[in-house]
């Protein structure tokens, strides 16, 4: 069937000179790549562009800011406690005299790291289950029932239960910070993969019937190669959109857990934790809740706009309008 045939060069006949009216016009510019089109469409969505820039800016400030800002997040200056904004402390200080700006940056590192890692985990799980369910008919039923089951679980209560019950065990194994980080990322990841799985499954089901998949199969491509070379690149756009939504969801969930006092330990700042700490002093220093709340909201808002623009840019039906 696939025995190698010896290379025989086809006999070349001189091509007849084409008639002027029948010759195709040669393309002058090289064909535009898909990603170029996507980028052009993305640029036209002003909100998405602003969101993307803002998100990058937040990441840069949060991760590179501590290199510039001299005060450490854990440095306690008890004489300068409960201060308002000043040049020495632009965001003020907390009840122990720790600099709020430094704590905001340290907290942002954790919050964004949790958001990104949990999103990657959820995305990986969701894509895996979606592709498997869409590609292999035998797995479709069980996997989709599993997805439905997960969708009918009350997620926030279960997250709270998981975090509360397993934090001791994990922090004694991995140390308090890493343990809680693993726990929270895992908990958020395993409770938020379902929408991705459903969207990916739907797209894979439609892709499977297309001719290029049949063609690839007919030349003997294995299932694994078929999925990685032909199916996955084509379901990239819904995956990317759910990635942005996943970051937003994970950041909000982590902050909610920290806000309820079930997140990271108290001396380990995250934005939700800072907000929770600030609510205790709500009567005396109401401005203190402002910074972490604005940081969470701005990050989520920028990511949501980014997702909105990506969805438009990656949809070929909208592109070019």
């Amino acid at each position: 069937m696939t025995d190698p045939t010896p290379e025989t060069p086809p006999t070349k006949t001189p091509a007849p000179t084409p008639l002027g009216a029948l010759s195709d016009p040669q393309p002058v510019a090289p064909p535009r790549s898909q990603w170029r089109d996507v980028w052009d469409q993305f640029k036209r969505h002003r909100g998405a562009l602003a969101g993307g820039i803002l998100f990058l800016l937040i990441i840069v400030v949060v991760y590179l800011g501590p290199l510039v800002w001299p005060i450490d997040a854990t440095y306690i200056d008890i004489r300068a406690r409960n201060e308002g904004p000043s040049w020495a402390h632009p965001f003020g200080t907390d009840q122990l005299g720790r600099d709020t700006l430094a704590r905001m940056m340290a907290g942002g590192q954790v919050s964004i790291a949790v958001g990104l890692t949990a999103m990657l985990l959820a995305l990986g799980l969701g894509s895996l289950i979606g592709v498997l369910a869409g590609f292999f008919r035998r797995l479709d039923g069980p996997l989709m029932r599993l997805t439905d089951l997960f969708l009918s679980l009350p997620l926030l209560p279960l997250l709270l239960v998981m975090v509360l019950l397993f934090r001791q065990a994990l922090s004694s194994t991995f140390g308090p910070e890493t343990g809680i980080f693993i726990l929270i990322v895992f908990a958020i990841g395993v409770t938020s993969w379902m929408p991705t799985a459903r969207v990916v499954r739907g797209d894979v089901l439609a892709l499977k019937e297309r001719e290029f998949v049949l063609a690839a199969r007919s030349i003997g491509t294995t299932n694994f190669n078929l999925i990685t070379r032909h199916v996955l690149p084509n379901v990239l756009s819904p995956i990317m959109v759910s990635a942005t939504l996943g970051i937003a969801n994970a950041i909000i969930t982590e902050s909610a857990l920290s806000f309820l006092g079930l997140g990271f330990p108290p001396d380990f700042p995250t934005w939700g934790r800072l907000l929770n700490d600030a609510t205790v002093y709500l009567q005396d220093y109401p401005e203190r809740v402002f910074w972490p709340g604005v940081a969470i909201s701005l990050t989520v808002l920028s990511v949501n706009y980014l997702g909105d623009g990506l969805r438009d840019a990656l949809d070929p039906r909208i592109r070019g309008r």
Partner: protein
Amino acid sequence: MLTYTIRRLVLSVPTLLFIALVIFLLLELAPGDPMAQVPLTVPPEVKAQMREALGLGEPTHIRFGKWLWQFFVVEPMVLTDHLFGTEFAADKQRVISWQTRSPVMDIVVQRMPQTIWVVAMAYVVGVLIALPIGIYSAYRQYSVFDQVGTFVTMVGFSVPPFFSGVLVIVIFSVQLGWLPSIYDTTHRVVDWNTFVMQLKQMVMPVMVLALQTTAQISRFMRASMLDNLNQDYVRTARAKGLSEQIVVMVHVLRNSMIPVVTVIALGVPQIFGGAIITEQIFKVNGLGQLLITAIQANDLPMVQTVTFMLAVLIVLFNIIADLLYGLLDPRIRYD
């Protein structure tokens, strides 16, 4: 339609059983001993008896079976006893909370009204605000109103309730001093003044919860209206000379409400879950607060029961949403 309903209801039984099992096993797997607080001087046989009293003496599957029996058989019996004065459940064992040593369902019934008042009111308010916004911003697509509306819904999406709640407390309670920041559940409405007081303390929690609802539902409403406004039947309706109001408010609105109604139904259980945070902020002693305190006190029967009730709500409203879809749209009749 009836067969479909029955099939869905029957299918929901294994789902719910599985969810109950997942919650039970999660609580079971958890490290931590409810007897850990008991002093070491207590002799082991007394400890064993105490475990027995908490219902911990038996293996996992038996306890799961017993919980199922208590939740699905004994508690409904108690309810019928309460309603009709019968004596089915006279000496049956009910699900007992470890914190208070009283039946879990009694506490849940006590906490229910607060949650229902705040949460249900917020949902109704949110939907009532969301629908006109969605309709108008779709009708005037890309107008200033639409742009502002889209931005506001994006903000409503993005600002988490634990920030918006604290923010309205800062503004309206701390700075302006208009509204109380703590929801007083012992407050009784007897005359006009107490009614105003009740309204005042409900404004902020309802506002915070409604902001989220409004953001989600007005986006759905707008998208659904936009889908329908370009349909052929709209052009037909205009061509035969119907007034613009009838075209939009009768023809288009009815068709675009179909997906929105299901979204509204699907959102009901979510808002019960989301109310956990809002109740925590405004100190409403509702179901969410009950769950949090139970989790913190390691009160496993209470956590199990309340979480499971939330799961029942989710499954129930999923079915309701699907049925509504079939009822409202004659093209989708599950036969």
